């Protein structure tokens, strides 16, 4: 929504977290984690370019609102427990 010139600062100063950008909508492939095989190596978390993975007790939780589906987590997973599946597929 375009803001009136009266509502904006003098110059564009960005002060809001980028979590407003639903970059998960870009995704063509979705990471699916088989938690039962996870070795808690944390590599998926470490190499996620978007910081879209958080660790809960060492196990990844992928935030699909932001995951762009690059597949680095699946590529780097030491237990090979992440697979990329086409969006829309089960």
């Amino acid at each position, binding site marked *: 929504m375009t803001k009136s010139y009266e509502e904006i600062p003098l110059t*564009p*100063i*960005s*002060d*809001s*977290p*980028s*979590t*407003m*950008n*639903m*970059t998960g909508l*870009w*995704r063509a492939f979705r990471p699916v984690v088989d938690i039962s095989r996870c070795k*808690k190596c*944390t590599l998926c*978390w*470490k*190499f996620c*370019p*978007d*910081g*879209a993975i958080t*660790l809960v*007790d*060492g196990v990844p939780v992928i*935030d699909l*609102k*932001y995951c*762009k*589906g*690059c*597949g*680095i987590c*699946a*590529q*780097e997973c030491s237990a090979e427990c992440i697979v*990329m599946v086409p969006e829309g597929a089960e």
Partner: protein
Amino acid sequence: MTKTTIPEEEFTYPGSTGCPGCGANLVMRYLLKGLGDRTVLSIPACCWAVMPGYWPSNCLKVPILYTAFEATGAGISGLRAAYDAKGVKDVTVVGFAGDGGTVDIGLQALSGAAERQTDAIYVMYDNEAYMNTGIQRSGATPWGAWTTTTPGGATKNYKHEPKKDIMAIMQAHGIPYAATVSVAHPEDFVKKAQKAKSLKGLRFIHALSPCPPGWRMSPQLTVEVARLAVDTHLFPLYEIDDGRLRITRKGKGTPVKEYLKIQGRFSHLDESQVDSIQKTVDERWAKLLKRESEGA
């Protein structure tokens, strides 16, 4: 709590508008893990001028001063002077620029900042071409690479010139610290960022930043290709601390063709060209080992 090998605290938010698999996202993420929240960034025109998102979005938990393309060296000098004048302490001033903004259009300002011994860290994230504008060659594009301005064609006009050696250029300025880092080795990366932070003067960090669209490869290979760059000795990890060179990761000595073959930008190279790259890499690696052993 699982123990992580790099600091768990994040200084980036999800929702950056970088491409899927962007190496430059990882560079920023690791850098800030090493530097912490008292960091002020000066960012010129480059992918990272766009990646924080449209106003009012910022994917970083630290402030950013956007500047003109060639102005990073001047920007960090201005910020540091203002904080000194105002008595603002405990602030890490960082210039964060791409390869074109560093080795080409921004080289003069960077050289000036280094000569003036500006108290700041300068990070070049090197995706080896003008990627934000759509993959045009830069002075940091390696020999033999395809880009949209070295498109090959009937005359085989690929990049004919070797990559500019920015580490040597920076070392020639007599700066206190220079290091290469890789997104495949975050622990080494964070450690070097922390070390740079602890020093004074102009510190320089050269980060290889794989670019899936520009390097013509699939996005899941970003970390793998960065790892191969180190393992093949094509992009060795080292630091020059007060003039002394130390290699921080020796790499396996994997043949360079393993690195080249997963990138479409090198797919046109024939065997003899690959051999010639291998020869250059071997020579440079031998020189680096020699420099390390001589303590220079």
